[in-house]
């Protein structure tokens, strides 16, 4: 256990607890906060935000309630932060790969909002994904089969996940969910547009607000096609035109995503999303998590350009192939 990390962690938790005077999203929403306006009259969401969290998407099996008490939530945060710091003992291989103190990969270092929810999913009320339809199960089984037919994960670059290939980090979305690092966003608002710069693999989300239709149904992309509108204080973004490869939690390409951004305090945006995909789940489901104000700037994340890991993994596998072939040849010549 490295004591320095624990000291840092506990100090940050104090900061976080002070920052987040509101104790839950539900409470925060009842406060009569009205966001400042941009010159063209939109509620102002501009700034740097983070949605870092230790809260899981689905409720852990042993937890039976929807909300923790403040004390419980703080304790969980403290334990999770300590565990995360602890995993990089100086001089060990994980410490070389991910030096958390150097790169800020330790989630609590950047500050995070205290969230009383026991899961990000709040609908269904049990905090779990709804049951998958038979069609959804078949599709995901077929996807697994297709992956198997492609061969082993180190046989070719294309056999690796989209994340490893730096094409789309699996949680960067949309919907925008946090991972262990790079959970930062910059929002700017120009006339007729909201622009969300997602730090993870420098993903620009340009959301037009002019009520235009979605792209034709055969023009699809991994992150879909997003169209926004204001409903009072809330930015509502509808995204369709996903691909079969998007497969968010096993979704189909016809998934319809609705995101709702509401600034509920000077330093906080309430981010909610609903997934409607009858080809995959028996009912729509929804989740929410806070976006906490943070500091900028967001630096360039040139993931693909620096992707030595993938080259090295494949090169290592080919070296193993060669060794095996040589060993086999040696045996047969004996």
């Amino acid at each position, binding site marked *: 256990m490295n004591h320095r990390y624990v000291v840092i962690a506990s100090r940050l938790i104090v900061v976080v607890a002070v920052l987040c005077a509101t104790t839950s999203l539900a409470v925060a929403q009842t406060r009569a906060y009205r966001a400042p306006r941009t*010159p*063209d009259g939109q509620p102002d969401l*501009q700034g740097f935000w983070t949605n870092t969290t230790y809260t899981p998407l689905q409720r852990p099996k042993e937890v039976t309630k929807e909300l923790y008490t403040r004390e419980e939530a703080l304790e969980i945060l403290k334990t999770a932060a300590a565990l995360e710091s602890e995993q990089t003992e100086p001089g060990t291989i994980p410490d070389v790969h991910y030096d958390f103190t150097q790169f800020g990969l330790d989630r609590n270092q950047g500050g995070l909002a205290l969230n009383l929810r026991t899961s990000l999913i709040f609908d269904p009320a049990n905090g779990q994904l709804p049951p998958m339809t038979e069609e959804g199960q078949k599709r995901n089984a077929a996807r697994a089969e297709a992956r198997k037919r492609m*061969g*082993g994960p*180190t*046989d*070719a*670059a*294309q056999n690796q996940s989209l994340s490893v*290939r*730096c*094409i*789309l980090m699996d949680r960067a979305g949309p919907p925008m969910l946090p991972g262990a690092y790079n959970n930062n966003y*910059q929002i*700017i*608002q*120009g*006339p007729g*547009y909201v*622009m969300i*710069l997602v730090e993870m693999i*420098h*993903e*620009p989300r*340009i959301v*037009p607000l002019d009520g*235009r239709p979605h*792209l034709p149904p055969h*023009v699809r*992309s*991994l*992150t879909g096609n997003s169209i926004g509108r204001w409903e009072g204080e809330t930015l509502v973004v509808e995204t369709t035109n996903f691909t079969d490869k998007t497969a968010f939690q096993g979704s189909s390409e016809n998934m319809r995503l609705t995101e709702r951004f509401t600034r509920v305090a000077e330093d906080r945006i309430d981010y909610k999303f609903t997934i409607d995909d009858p080809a995959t789940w028996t009912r729509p489901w929804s989740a929410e998590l806070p976006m906490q104000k943070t500091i900028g*700037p*967001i*630096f*360039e994340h*040139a993931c*693909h*350009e620096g992707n030595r890991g*993938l*080259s090295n993994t*494949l*090169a290592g*596998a*080919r070296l193993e*192939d*060669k060794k*095996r*072939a040589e060993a086999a040849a040696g045996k047969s010549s004996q």
Partner: protein
Amino acid sequence: MLDRFARSLTRVAAIAAVLLTATAAVGQTTYKAPRTSDGKPNLNGIWQALNEAYWDIEAHAAAPSSVPALGAAGAIPPGQGIVEGGLLPYLPAAAEQKKKNFENRLTLDPETKCYLPGVPRANYMPYPFQIIQTPKYIMMVYTFARAVRTIYMDDHQEAPADSWMGWSNGRWENETLVVDTTGFNGMAWLDRAGNFHSEALHVVERFTATGPDHLLYEATIEDKNVFSRPWKISMPIYRRMEKNAQILDFRCVEFAEDLIYGHLRKQPGN
């Protein structure tokens, strides 16, 4: 009579000279762009260069494709270039490097690998880009590789680290957005012909609206490791007028994977 004619001619010439000087001083245009809410020229929109500089920023004749299978469809179109004075002032060693880059462009050009295009190259690639303008930050979102530049209008600072797209500090000079960019990693190229720069690159760009749907783009390029003196490019940039114009998703990594990793694919029988 003749005297009076001469006098009035002199007067006309004097007025014309004043007018010409005034025109030159505001960047070769007297057009005044519509204003944003904070009173700055409104450069918001979807824009695209329309020239052959993405093949070669220097003036060049037509040439065959380096991929014979593409035939005439892949041929290099002739272009007059965007470099003022025509040719780049390479230092001798850099001129050699440029030649090598050109000969090996199929494997060396960062564009073929879907790497971030850098500056100024991003501005004359054959894809649209969008300017989203706010008082403190201006973002330029490019179609190619989904590259993004943030131009810091307020909190100017030195580049915290090197990057592909560099670190851009911006300011307004009357009608012109002036962007000063440094902090490059030196790995980007300037075009498909192997023109290149080092990490010492310093680009000063000037974006000036010359009409409702046109920008004049000018950039001064300085790189003491590669060029003997600063040089300048300039070109018009056009507004994409389609009603539904938008930056579509050109996520090109997967188009480059066979090129980058193909030699590491498992061979049958192994």
